[in-house]
Each structure stands twice: as C-alpha cells, then as structure tokens.
C-alpha cells in the first residue's frame, strides 16, 4: 500500500488469500476421498473377480445396471479427486505463473476428456449388451 492509498486497509485485504474458495476445494477433496474409499474397494474386488475373464464375461459384468452405475460414479469421482490433488501440487511447485495456469487448465481438459471417454464407453457397453 502506498502513502497515497486512501482505502481502508481492510478494504485492500478483503478477498485476498484463502478467503474465496479455499474451503470449497478442501471440503470437496475430502468428500470425494470418502466416496472413493468405498468405490475403490468395490472397484478392486470387481477387477479381481474378472481375472482371466473372457470378453463376453467382462462385457456382461460392466453391463449389469448396478456395476455400470457404480463404475460411472467411480470414474467421475476419481477424475474429480485427481484434478483437486494435482491442482494443489501444481500450485505448490510451479512458480512461473503462465506455466502454472497452463498446467492447471491442461489437467482439467485431460480429466474432462478422460471422464467423458470412459463414461461413454461404460454407457455404450451398458446400453447395447
């Protein structure tokens, strides 16, 4: 603040720091984490049950309504949690501003692409088998 600045110091400080959406990020990361605890255990067991499964069995497993639904929830939650985690890592370690912004946008693009591609794959399997 320069000597000419007539604004109240509080007016200058407001809106800076973590007073904007930091809590939202923190909370969403925890909620997706809690969901993933359950979804991951289900996912690992499902994948292990498909050891040596042939194509038809794998298709039929994914196509079951409950499995397809849980798989889609898992995929969206997984990508969401991954973006939130990677975002913090990038914010911590990438110190050049333009590289930081570029990386943040890039991981979001990739996550949306990954989530959409995998969800569409599940839907295609579930709706045609």
């Amino acid at each position, binding site marked *: 603040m320069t000597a000419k600045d007539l604004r109240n110091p509080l007016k200058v400080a407001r809106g800076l720091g973590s007073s904007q959406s930091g809590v939202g990020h923190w909370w969403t990361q*925890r909620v997706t*984490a*809690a969901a*993933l*605890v359950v979804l*991951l255990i289900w996912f*690992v067991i499902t994948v*292990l049950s498909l*050891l*040596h499964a042939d*194509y038809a069995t*794998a*298709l039929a497993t*994914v196509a079951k309504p409950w499995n397809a639904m849980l798989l889609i929830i898992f*995929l969206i939650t*997984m*990508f969401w949690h*991954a973006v939130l*985690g*990677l975002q913090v*890592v990038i914010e911590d370690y990438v110190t050049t501003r333009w590289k930081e912004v570029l990386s943040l946008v890039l*991981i979001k693009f990739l996550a949306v692409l*990954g989530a959409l*591609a*995998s969800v*569409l*794959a*599940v839907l*295609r*399997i579930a709706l045609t088998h």
Partner: protein
Amino acid sequence: MADTRRPLSPHLQIYKWQVQMVSSILHRATGIALAVGTLLVVAGLLHLASGEQSFNQFKEIVGSPIGEILLIGWTWALFYHLCNGIRHLVQDTGAGYAIPQFVRSSWLSVVLSLVLTAVVWAYVLTAGGAA
C-alpha cells in the same frame, strides 16, 4: 531482499529422515502416480467397448512382464494412498496428532499398504497371472 546466507527451511540435505515426512511425500507421489494410472482405467474401458480383438490386445499388454510390474507399482500406490488417505481423514477430525500416535499411524499406512499389495498379488499370481 532477506539475507540469503541464512539456512532455508526445509533444509533437506541435513534434515533427518523420519517416517512422518516419508508418509507425507509418498502421499503426493502416489497421488500423482495414480492420476497417471487413471489413463489405464480409461484405456481398459475404451478397449472393452471397441470389441473383442481390441480387448484381447489390451489384456496382452497389461499381462506382459512390463505391464505386470507397472500394475504391481500401481497396486501399491493405490493401497498406500487409500490407507494414508483414511489416516488423513481421521486426522481431519483433530485426532491422532500426538507425536507417538502420528509416528505409529505413519508406519501403519506404510506397512498395511505393503501387506494389502502382497495379499492381492499373491491372489493374482496363484490364480495364474494378470489378464
């Protein structure tokens, strides 16, 4: 500018390694590894949706020696991030911050993740390998 000759923290070269910092670093490292691993899940589903030939191709790549080594790595990363993630969720409630508890739960994450990885791969290998 501040006096740059003063020691900067964290001064990793002289910092004594302890399990608390290892568990914290590993949580990030495994998180990044798992974010890359999401691509494997996407690849698997896309191959499954593209037909039998493409699915068998995927199984072949995943079941190859390099594929299995990567899978073992990802399995451990998954279980470590899961165990330590649950530890962090418990700590978010304010519990477990006394130093002995903190050290003990760090070790618990490390050991449990190795045990779970061993159990899963013992099952996979006795069942005759992945894919």
